[in-house]
């Protein structure tokens, strides 16, 4: 068996998101050790494939892994008129309970995470005011700054979803004892990012077409032809790359990558590769929201249950956290724009730019609250119940 990159490096690379601390030592013992791990994993192949769940395999695969979106998609897409399709009347409520609540969840999590004020003083204390000032400036110059704020959030959205898929995939690998080498981690990152590259290259008013304000790309048919080929090739690269990654990890890391990590990549890819852009933003926002809420509620409950002198049940903490997210989501998306209208701004910028600002604030906060450094409270939660490498 080849010597793995981990063995040579002796440690993991650090992630900007879901940072595993950059100091996780691979067990000493060389190839013999990896052989032993491989045999152990093979003996227990179904469990290795299933991975180590946070709550229950069905909950994790359906909600966090995004399996529910594939089930709903399979029912709805062949027959868009089916009863399962969201009606115009019900869609705002579904969005409030999933997507709006998920945007609020990052803020609720930020302020309820133990030690957040101490470890993230800028994000917890200064960012709300900074966001308000920036948003109001964009409102004031809505005609010039507004389109850029909107394009920024629409460009950032698919990156955020891809980064979440990557972070969760790494987290499940780690929990399940599947130690990723630096090379495999890099490949996993590239595979996770493919849907983002897809939207970045081909979406109108986002990514490349946003940067290219002069319309240089539109005037060049050769670039257009290249982008169309890119658009066609990228899903194929995604499939081939994911299969290669899975095989590579199984062969060289002594343990297969859990299927939920693969599912996370597939669901994010399906949202962006298969659905039309308009539908993708609706579907991705709903199911990404559900995915996010499931994992963040789990982390919140674990934090609260671990507090000394806590007297409430887990159900209480789940309901408290989710209720706070729904209320804050309602306040942010439905009350906040009304305040800007009251301040004399037009309804268009008041609604659309508030939405853009909430998105960007969420992406920013999210990049901080999921760190998994050794001293971070998140790390203890991920470690809980994790399968040992051997």
């Amino acid at each position, binding site marked *: 068996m080849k010597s793995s990159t981990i063995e040579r490096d002796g440690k993991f690379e650090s992630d900007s998101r879901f940072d595993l601390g950059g100091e996780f030592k691979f067990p000493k013992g060389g190839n013999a050790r990896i052989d032993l791990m491989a045999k152990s994993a093979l003996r227990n192949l179904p469990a290795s494939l299933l991975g180590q769940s946070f709550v229950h395999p069905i909950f994790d695969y359906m909600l966090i892994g995004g399996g529910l979106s594939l089930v709903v998609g399979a029912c709805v897409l062949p027959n868009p008129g089916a009863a399962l399709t969201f009606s115009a009347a019900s869609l705002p409520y579904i969005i409030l309970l999933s997507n709006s609540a998920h945007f609020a969840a990052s803020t609720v999590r930020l302020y309820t995470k133990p030690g957040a004020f101490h470890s993230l003083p800028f994000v917890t204390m200064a960012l709300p005011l900074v966001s308000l000032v920036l948003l109001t400036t964009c409102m004031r110059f809505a005609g010039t700054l507004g389109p850029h704020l909107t394009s920024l959030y629409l460009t950032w959205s698919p990156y955020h979803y891809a980064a979440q898929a990557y972070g969760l995939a790494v987290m499940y690998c780690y929990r399940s004892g599947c130690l990723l080498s630096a090379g495999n981690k890099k490949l996993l990152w590239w595979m996770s990012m493919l849907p983002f590259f897809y939207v970045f290259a081909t979406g109108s008013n986002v990514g490349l077409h946003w940067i290219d304000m002069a319309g240089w790309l539109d005037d060049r048919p050769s670039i257009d032809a290249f982008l169309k080929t890119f658009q066609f090739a990228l899903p194929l690269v995604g499939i081939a790359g994911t299969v290669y990654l899975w095989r590579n990890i199984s062969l060289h890391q002594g343990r297969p990558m859990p299927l939920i990590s693969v599912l996370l990549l597939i669901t994010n890819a399906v949202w962006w590769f298969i659905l039309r852009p308009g539908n993708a933003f609706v579907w991705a926002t709903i199911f990404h929201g559900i995915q996010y809420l499931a994992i963040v509620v789990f982390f919140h409950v674990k934090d609260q249950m671990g507090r000394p002198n806590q007297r409430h049940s887990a159900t209480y903490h789940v309901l408290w956290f989710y209720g706070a997210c729904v209320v804050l989501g309602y306040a942010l998306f439905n009350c*906040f724009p*009304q*305040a800007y209208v009251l301040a004399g701004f037009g309804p268009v910028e008041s609604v659309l730019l508030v939405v853009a600002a909430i998105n960007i604030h969420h992406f920013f906060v999210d990049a901080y609250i999921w760190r998994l450094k050794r001293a971070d409270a998140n790390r203890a939660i991920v470690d809980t119940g994790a399968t040992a490498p051997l």
Partner: protein
Amino acid sequence: MYQVSLKDCLYKTAFVVGIAIFFLAFTLGFFRSIILHAHIPPVGVTYRAGIDSLKEQRKHNALASQLRLALDLDLDRSDQFNLHYELGMLLDSQGKQMEAIPHLHRSVQLNSDHIEALNHLAWTLATCPDPELHRSLRLQAVELARRASKRLANKHPGVLDTLAAAHAAVGQYELAVTTAESALKLAARQQADPLAEEIRARLQLYKASKPFYREPQPFGKDRPNGANSNQ
């Protein structure tokens, strides 16, 4: 030591100010909605209600700038047809036909089955008083009006009136006269007297080999040929 304290102090001040503004904004937004609309802010609030409100209040300049802004900011494209169509109609009513035409044209591109949009674009192209309007666009008016009229089995006097105006705009006065006469008969049969009166006046122009160019009409009223009814 002093710097750290100052930083802490700034952070804490920013936090208090930021949170206070947020709570104030939430409260004001909540109560504004209750006071103005007698209900809590609706879930899934959009700017559409605000646009409709500006329309009702006849604040046309504010409405035009909001519609333009919505076209720039609303990139999800779900409301693009309505935005272009409403902006086109508004600009047309303000006598800015040359600005209205691209928006009406885009609305037809987005929804080629919308007979009102087809008819309105044809009417604007045919009756725009600007001599700068290219003849090819006037010819396009004939094609669009013909398409709209065909969809209504040539039974709509307003759309036939548009077709007559389009024929006149490209110098096809004989066709304009026969089409206008058909429109007049239909209008009389349907007892649409104001429309019949307008068609009769235009018919005199066509008989004198003159096209019909119109004056701006108030936004929100039926278009001169009444083609936005009976869709």
